[in-house]
């Protein structure tokens, strides 16, 4: 029996508002514990939460960017459970009436684009942070994160492989970052993912028993956890053993998922509408005004890059993977209108350096205008392509401009025919054996002479001139 995985993802994205969802405390990351707290977010009796309007707008943006329907009226609900990271004894979330429903995004797969449906997007508050003491039976609670706004994005179970799940995650992260509503940092936890996964016989519709996977804090871990779970469930089914519906944690050190059974006595959240928070009613005109603020989204930009700059899909995908990178490309291309050359340089030289230093394009020491200047110097023959690469390295390390580096180091291409001829004469004199062999028919030696000429000029000789002069010299003397 051939089995296929069925995967759905729940994503929590921390919103980049300045203040918390229901109080004025700061959302800034990294403050000393409990310094961003007030009676509302630590749940002192008698306080009243008031909704941050920006949270609704940010959530709406994500809803619209993923083709959801925005609910004309939505409502907050209390999700009841006891855990010390939750001072109220309930989390304010949305349950029956979420803000956005029924959307979709297209992801790129090996077999071409695939549409993944989005079930719902709702607003909720984040919980606090617990640090467990290693030696005493005690935990330290920090409520700075309590009340930081989140949106939860729930997909339909439309993914069939761990690669598709990763592609979906990347697509959503890109959109969130384009919208500038979430920084998408998985390691720091501002972008988190839980996965539901089950297996079913190929060609059948009914879903198998699913497990829920948690604790995966990188794209790689999401993929590995899913792959492990696919293997584990397949082995159970093949042995005719039941898959138990449960939550499993990804254990990064051991590369396995482990059962949390017993630790979560049957979840019964007893949701009910939060009487402290009145309905959020969104008019058509509000939706329209938010829609107007949407930037060009990754998919549209990708298509435009292919049409306008005649770039291949791969280049367009890489260049639009972040808004800042796309801006960098377009700024450089405006100054040096040869898109493919600019794209090649960004994808090879520039990204190689950034990757090595684990830097974002925002912190790139070479501004796009400077890259354009370098490419112009190369294009007009002032410097050779080879020299351009060393100049680029210099620009990246020192932050200086191409022209200044070329002038100071005397890297201008040698295009003086007389000078090149003199050098070639010298080379031919110094290598009589090779000259004879070449003339005897060993034509492969031509590149040896070119290499010599380049070495003597430290790579500055114009390659076309070197070729021409060499060819005529080697031929001439023959007669």
């Amino acid at each position, binding site marked *: 029996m051939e089995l296929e995985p069925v995967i759905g993802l729940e994503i929590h994205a921390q919103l980049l508002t300045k203040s918390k969802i229901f109080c004025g*405390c700061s959302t800034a990351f990294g403050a000393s*514990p409990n310094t961003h707290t*007030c009676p509302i977010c630590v749940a002192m009796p008698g306080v009243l939460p008031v909704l941050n309007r920006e949270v609704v707008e940010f959530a709406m943006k994500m809803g619209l960017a993923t083709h959801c329907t925005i609910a004309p009226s939505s409502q907050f609900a209390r999700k009841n459970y006891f855990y010390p990271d939750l001072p109220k004894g309930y989390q304010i979330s949305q349950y029956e009436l979420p803000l956005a429903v029924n959307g979709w995004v297209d992801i790129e797969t090996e077999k071409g684009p695939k549409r993944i449906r989005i079930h719902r997007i709702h607003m909720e508050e984040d919980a606090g942070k617990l640090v467990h003491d290693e030696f005493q039976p*005690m935990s330290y609670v920090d409520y700075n994160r309590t009340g930081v706004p989140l949106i939860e994005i729930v997909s339909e179970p439309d993914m069939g492989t761990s690669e598709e799940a990763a592609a979906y995650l990347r697509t959503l992260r890109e959109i969130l970052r384009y919208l500038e509503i979430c920084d998408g940092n998985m390691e720091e936890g501002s972008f988190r993912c839980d996965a539901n996964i089950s297996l079913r016989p190929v060609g059948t519709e009914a879903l198998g028993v699913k497990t829920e996977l948690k604790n995966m804090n990188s794209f790689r871990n999401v993929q590995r956890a899913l792959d492990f779970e696919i293997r584990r469930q397949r082995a159970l089914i093949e042995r005719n053993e039941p898959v138990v519906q449960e939550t499993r944690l990804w254990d990064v050190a051991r590369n396995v998922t482990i059962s949390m059974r017993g630790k979560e006595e049957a979840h019964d959240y*007893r949701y009910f*509408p939060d*009487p402290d928070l*009145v309905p959020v009613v969104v008019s058509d005109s509000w939706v329209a005004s938010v829609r107007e603020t949407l930037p060009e989204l990754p998919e549209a930009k990708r298509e435009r890059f292919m049409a306008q700059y005649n770039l291949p899909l791969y280049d367009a995908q890489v260049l639009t993977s972040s808004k800042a990178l796309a801006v960098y490309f377009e700024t450089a291309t405006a100054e040096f209108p040869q898109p493919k050359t600019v794209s090649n340089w960004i994808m090879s030289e520039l990204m190689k350096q950034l990757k090595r230093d684990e830097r974002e394009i925002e912190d790139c020491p070479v501004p796009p205008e400077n890259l354009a200047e370098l490419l112009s110097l190369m294009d007009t023959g002032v410097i050779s392509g080879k020299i351009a690469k060393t100049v680029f390295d210099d620009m990246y390390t020192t932050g200086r401009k191409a022209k200044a580096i070329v002038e100071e180091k005397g890297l201008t291409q040698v295009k003086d025919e007389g000078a090149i001829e003199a050098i070639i004469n010298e080379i031919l004199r110094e290598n009589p054996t090779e000259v004879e062999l070449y003339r005897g028919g060993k034509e492969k030696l031509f590149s040896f002479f070119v290499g010599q000429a380049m070495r003597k000029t430290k790579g500055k000789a114009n390659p076309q001139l070197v070729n021409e002069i060499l060819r005529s010299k080697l031929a001439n003397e023959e007669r």
Partner: protein
Amino acid sequence: MKEKITRQEVRHVAQLARLELSEEEEKQMTAKMNQVLTYMEKLNSLDTSRVPHMTHAIQLQNVFRPDEVLPSMDREQILANAPECDGVSFLVPKVI
């Protein structure tokens, strides 16, 4: 009369609320909660089929605050009522 809530359910609710009830208390609570629920049942005699679904008794909607940071409370004050703290964090029994 049919029970509205069983002893089993009362035990479950108590567990969710982290309450430890003795046998006697369980029995008492079951009886009391049945009384309350029976009383509430009277509401079902009203025909509400034409009343729209609502979550609030008041006709308010869209109460918002702008996204502005306001000063938080002094940590000392925030921690003042904590059963246990170290001056920086709340301390609780370890639960994993």
